[in-house]
């Protein structure tokens, strides 16, 4: 249970992000909140794939004495995280350009200045 501190940290990170999305009115803060949730979920995936004492699963100049496969961390979560980081970048780029456009129209970053919610 106490060894689960990394997971609990990740869960708290997700909760912080969710708080920002649900209760903040500033659009930029909503975008930041989503990015925090994103990072939380990515970290969750990475921490799930950790094996005690494992090294990165790369054979180039692998230190001798590393057992294969027990001595390596899992590669699949890292690949999934890579994919999801790229998706996160894409979402962030799109979200920021929406925010810029809305700012040009409304001259305000407050989501309540119009009927926007969520």
């Amino acid at each position, binding site marked *: 249970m106490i060894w689960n501190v990394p997971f609990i940290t990740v869960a708290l990170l997700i909760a912080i992000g*969710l708080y920002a999305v649900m209760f903040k009115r500033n659009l930029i803060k909503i975008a930041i909140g989503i990015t925090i949730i994103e990072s939380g979920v990515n970290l969750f995936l990475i921490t799930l794939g950790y094996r005690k004492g494992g090294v990165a699963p790369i054979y180039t100049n692998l230190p001798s004495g590393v057992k294969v496969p027990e001595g390596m961390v899992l590669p699949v979560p890292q690949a999934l995280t890579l994919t999801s980081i790229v998706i996160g970048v894409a979402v962030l780029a799109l*979200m920021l350009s929406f925010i810029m456009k809305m700012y040009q129209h409304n001259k305000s970053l407050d989501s309540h200045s119009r009927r926007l919610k969520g």
Partner: protein
Amino acid sequence: MIYNEAIPAILIGLPLLAAFITPIINLASRKARNAFVIAVLAIEELLIILLAWHVFTDGIVIYTMGAKNPSIVPLQAAVPIRIVLEIDGMAAFMGLISCTVAMAAGIYSIAFIKEGNGKSRYYTLLLIMLAGMLGMEFTGDLFNLFVFLEILSIASCGLIAYRQHADAVEGAFKYLVVSNIAALFVLFAIALFYAQYDLLNIAAIAKVMQYTQLDKIALVLLVAAFAMKCGAVPMHFWAPDSYSTAPAAITAMLVAASQASLYALFRVCFTLYGSLMDYQTIGLAIIIFGLLSMFIGVTMALPQKDIKRLMAYHAISQTGYMLLGVGVGLYLLGSSDFNVYGIKAMEGGIFHIINHAMYKGLLFLTAGAIYYRLGTRNLNEMGGLGHTMKFTSIFFIIGALAIAGIPPFNGFASKLLIYEACYKVSPILSIVAMLVSVLTLASFIKVFHSAFMGPKMHDVKEVPKSMLIGMAVLTFVIIFFGLFPGWVVSHIVHPAVMALVDKTAYINAVMGG
């Protein structure tokens, strides 16, 4: 033909490749670009019909990405390592919907979207949206489902914001926030599965699923996420904003997109969890969501002045019918009554999915046609359009009668199945469903009256041919389904329902005996 087995990959790969090439072709000529996009969409339609025919006659089709022999899953280490596409009856059924709507929307957009420096990107994103829907429906892998969910929602957001005015960007932003949070829930649920089973394949997880507490949490997250994305009632707030501000062809696509999420919801409930979960509770929850969606959607629709907003609320209400039908089926699954009328309820619900995509798509396209000529969506500023826009008004009448469930159109066929089956469970369900239908009819009579009837107010012409063809495609499907409901149910809908219910067949196709 040797490429026959490659159809699933081509179906998803072709629109992606076409989307990447479209900006390059656009440099050469705009006409060539239009022809190219329409040709791709037509090929897609052809291929999906071939594939669906194949699936309905021979059963589940498997395609392993990157393997030497794609049609069998190499079970190294006793689990599938690579991404597997698995197309069963339900997936092929949803693919038919997506391709048909995309084709209609693509043809419609030739004239509807004015030439400008955004149009080549518009088509690019339209193709990506189609690929996203097909990818979601065909995939047999959970993480892949997440990736295509994101593709779908990002492409849709870019298109919702196409008009660039404040409302459109706002609707797109809202949709992006909602769908991204939903996608992250899905990713968290996938991580929970991964932690326990070290698997990502849906069939493989379903086989070893133990229904631990983590699995229950994952179920709640998945159901919440997909319900959020398909616009069922507690999470419906994004739907009217984004539906009403997107260009009409995109709104038709959005309807199909929300149904892809609905498909994912059904896939999770029936295949991933299946017999493990408590059917009655989940079924009852879905029925309640369905009833709420139906009722709240239609009551919110009645006072609307904006024609597309009104239709968007009706879309929420119609989603309720699908949830009701499938929820009743789920509620009865496992009991002895299931074979008697549980199947019928599910047939109704599933049949309603395709019907709704067709007539709601058609209605949004007619609303777009009005907007194209008048430049307004406000019902009070319309009137007398029936004098000049004859074809559009005929299409509107067909769509409106179909949505209200008037025979001989297709909405009647599926609603009748739902009424009959629900009556056996509880008469109240049927009564509410019928009441909602009556209110729907009333609402559309109001629209018809204020938009098309009355004295000639505007001097407008009929819309261009390509828009009419786009609408005619959907109208043709509606009339065909309305005239031959028995054939459609037994040849297309029934295999889809059986594919959804039969979890073991889905698992065995990947994991072997």
